[in-house]
């Protein structure tokens, strides 16, 4: 909860500001300030987005107009004209790929939108899970690579507290969680998967992240709160 959500009148005035921003009536400085808040305050950004949704049918009145043909080349010139541009790196090592997949996954778009285009050859079975929970800001994207027997983890948000670690678990039906190990610190990390667990993962399991003492759970079962979960889905 942010301050503005707890504070009724303040939230009301924020909502009005969001409406005025979307309508377009504010002055340059006011728009810049609003724009800064959209970037910095998710709660305010949501108010603005809600107003964009409410008023968007009005945009049907804009007639279409073909831009001059030369314009796309000018755009490409601005974006891609760096001399000696590097050839496209492998999609799996590209930060843009991970970020794109991550936001898509979090929005529930991943299976319907992004993945049909990324179908790997059949022998390289890959399973994807977007790990998140309403109660925390910890978010990971997990990709199980059956060919290499590992789980790739892209850390999207949420930091571990001092002296704590995140541990990854596999949960299959009603069985007790099985540890896949402590998640290494880093933006993109990997955990190897032992043979007995591989088969279970390939059949589609639930992954979960719990907060544990540094070095991992002392009991072999989760001892701290579960801060993110998600279903592994075949892509």
């Amino acid at each position, binding site marked *: 909860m942010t301050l503005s959500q707890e504070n009724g009148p303040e939230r009301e005035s924020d*909502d*009005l500001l969001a*409406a*005025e921003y*979307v*309508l*377009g*009536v*504010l*002055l*340059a400085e006011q*728009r810049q300030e609003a*724009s800064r808040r959209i970037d910095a305050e998710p709660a305010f950004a949501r108010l603005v*987005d*809600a107003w*964009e*949704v*409410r*008023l*968007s*049918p*009005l*945009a*049907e*009145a*804009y*007639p*279409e*107009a*073909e*831009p*001059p043909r030369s*314009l*796309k080349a*000018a*755009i490409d010139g*601005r*974006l*891609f004209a760096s001399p000696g541009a590097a050839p*496209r790196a492998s*999609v799996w090592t*590209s930060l*843009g*790929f991970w*970020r*794109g*997949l991550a*936001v*898509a996954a*979090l*929005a529930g*778009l991943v299976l*319907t*939108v*992004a993945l049909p*285009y*990324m179908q*790997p050859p059949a022998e390289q079975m890959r399973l994807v899970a977007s790990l998140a929970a309403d109660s925390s800001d910890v978010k990971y994207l997990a990709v199980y690579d059956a060919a290499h027997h590992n789980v790739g983890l892209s850390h999207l948000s949420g930091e571990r507290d001092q002296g704590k670690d995140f541990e990854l678990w596999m949960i299959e039906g009603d069985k007790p969680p099985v540890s896949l190990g402590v998640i290494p610190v880093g933006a993109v990390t990997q955990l190897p998967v032992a043979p007995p667990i591989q088969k279970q993962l390939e059949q589609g399991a639930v992954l979960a992240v719990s907060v544990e003492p540094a070095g991992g759970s002392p009991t072999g079962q989760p001892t701290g709160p579960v801060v993110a979960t998600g279903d592994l889905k075949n892509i």
Partner: protein
Amino acid sequence: MAVAIDAALQMAGDRLVSTAMVPQDISKLIVRTSMKDRAAFDLLYRQTSAKLFGVCLRVLNDRGEAEDALQEIYVKIWTKADRFAVSDLSPISWLVAIARNHSIDRIRARRRPTTDIDAVLDVADPAPGPEAAAVAGDQAGQIHRCLEELESDRAAAVRGAYLKGESYAELAQRHRVPLNTMRTWLRRSLMKLRECLER
């Protein structure tokens, strides 16, 4: 793999040129653009640039400036495509919002007011009548129904502000009311609209 994807996308694109682009297709193109896929970006431009250029022209009232704005808008779309996933907007509405906001920022930033093409050509605000509103379907029709609940000059001010990006000052001048009156009108109208849309 990348080659195959591009070829498939190209084929999909060629097929789609002759048919209407459905929102799901534009969603795919935006998501792929966020993964820095240039083929998807090219297609996205082909499918959406006419609509966005229409937005720029209407708000900026100046062809040269609209062309500059459109370039900046697609640069923004390339760099910020990952934001699409956290918006509740339909894909085309999300793109229009970027184009509108960018164009409005541009007119606010410019010092000299340009000649009002609307005044010269006497272009009416295209406010769809009840029929158009009914045809536009429930969600789209609702905003028009709610606007009809407002007094007509206030509804016109809301439409004018939205479509042309007019400031409070410009609206006050055009409707011949004091600035504070216009501000009060519009704020109350916005709150009434919200209430009506949430009914």
